[in-house]
């Protein structure tokens, strides 16, 4: 089942929503969240809203905001595949 989640994301043609993915895999949304969290811990998925510029180094006018820049839009949650470790 865990590999099916990775495969489903890999084969997605365009962005899919979590609801869509859970219906496609016939998996409870709560279980899907857990499986995604597992792959995030394993480094195969990256689960992030848009990164702010907190801690982004010199030259960033938002460096005054260590928890993220005030201009970072509250974007959608994005989950992406990460290349497997060599």
């Amino acid at each position, binding site marked *: 089942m865990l590999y099916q989640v990775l495969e489903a994301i890999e084969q997605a043609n*365009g962005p899919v929503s979590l609801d869509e993915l859970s219906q496609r895999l016939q998996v409870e949304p709560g279980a899907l969240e857990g499986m995604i969290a597992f792959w995030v811990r394993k480094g195969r998925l990256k689960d992030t809203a848009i990164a702010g510029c907190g801690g982004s180094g010199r030259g*960033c006018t938002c460096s005054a905001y260590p928890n993220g820049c005030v201009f970072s839009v509250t974007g*959608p949650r994005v989950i992406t595949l990460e290349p497997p470790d060599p």
Partner: protein
Amino acid sequence: MTTLDMSFPQAPFHYPPPIETELNRLTELFARTPALADAYPPRWLAIQALEGDEALIQDIRTLGGPTVAAALEESLERLRAAYGDDLDVVLVDQRYRFVHAIAMQAVRRPSTPPMTLSDRIDRVVTNRWLGIPIFLAVMWVVFKLTTDVASPFVDWLDSVVSGPVSRWALALLALFGANGGWIESLMVDGVVAGVGGVLAFVPVLLMLYFALALLEDSGYMARAAFVMDRLMRALGLHGKSFLPMIVGFGCSVPAIYATRTLDNRRDRILTGLLVPFMSCSARLPVYVLIAMVFFPAHAGQVIFGLYLTGIVVAVGMGALLRHTLFRHQPQAPFVLELPPYRMPTLRGVWRQMWERTSSFIRKAGTIILATSIVVWLLLAIPVGEGEFADAPVDQSAFAAVANAATPVFAPLGFGQWEASGALVTGLIAKEVVVGTLAQVYDGAEEEGAPGDELATFVDDLSGIAGGFVTAVGDAVHALPGIVGINLIEAEEEPVAEGLAAAIRTGFMASSGGHGSLAALAFLVFVLLYTPCVAALAANRHEFGTAWMLVSLLGQFAIAWLAAFIVFQGGMMMGR
């Protein structure tokens, strides 16, 4: 007290036999080791150890001693021989299969899940054909809000800065005996004209941040990204590129850093090159100032057109680069979670508005203030006739330096040292363009400001309060105009006065009488050239010096070309 004795049916759960064998072996061993058995449930500890929990494995080695550690290592070796490095995946997967099997038997769900309110709204908002028109309509409302509704407050603040605030500054200087000299010039022509001229646009930014906060907190911004993703994919671009671009509406710097969400370096570079074309909020004061001077009846449309132009140029350039420099980049798929729609809270919206606006005000107190002082200093240094702080502005060091850049902008219709100088200082930060225009034209206007010298402090205060009430009234009347209902009597195009008149005269002179066309070309140039040095620094930090230079020169070339097309094309069309 009574307790309820509840018993639940037990569902047997087992891992695959080779794993169960090793688990049983380890569980027994841990149970026989008091230091471990007292600290952890043995079977749980065995499962965690096989899943590779480093901290617990260390505990087992420490508390269990060499015999237990060796037994654990042997179990792991045997299982790795069978399952490779995916042993933890097998264990976790088994548990999910078990849960899934129970859920399938125990939970009955309708074959098609019931539509929530969010689903119903999304059927329209993210519809293949309606999504983009709705996105454009939303943008239209945002920019009508930022111009029509905010402009009465801009006028009010502008009159406060150029009137009472300037008078108070002069009175304060007189109190210390510092009036009449270069200090007065620095305070009035430098600080008040430069910083005050920019701060007058705070209402515009408050309104923009209000609209953005509503869109973000309601959940619409995520839909905008979803809708644009489809369009970008259709053009061969990476859909995820639009996410940093949406951040770019606020500020280019975090947008460049937001490219880190993209998977490979070339996608990040490509998006980093496109992000600065999205119109950041710092450019808005320039748009509002110029649009109000030259297109007062259509300022909203002009600003909307500029934002749209930014998106079109970014997407167009992206498609071009994707098919040339950045060919053969596979598109990585991703999950984009659309949160349910929510009613934005007053507190949340206010927090975002305040945080973003206060960041702008801080910038006014630092970068913009410093630049205003440097510009004043250059304006105060005479190159030809006159003395320090008392020379005609067109004889100043600033005019001399800016004049050197003037020929570059002459074919674009704004080959005047005032506009060239403002564009050069605009590299520091875009708001500075407004501050510099206010300074150079204020200097050119000379005497007359800051208005009624005989007004008392009480007169000023009552004037400020009265002006605010009038601004509120005008803003309320402007609200229905967003949807095309005009409650305000159609006015003649207002006669430009003060700064506006000076800007108009300057553009008319440099364009051979085609001031509006030159102003439009100027706006397009401001939209497309480098946002600020901070954005360049972010670009260098993320992609290196070479790509930063590509971005700087590329944007300048595109901005010049686009402004050239607007001005020369407009001239050819007889405007």
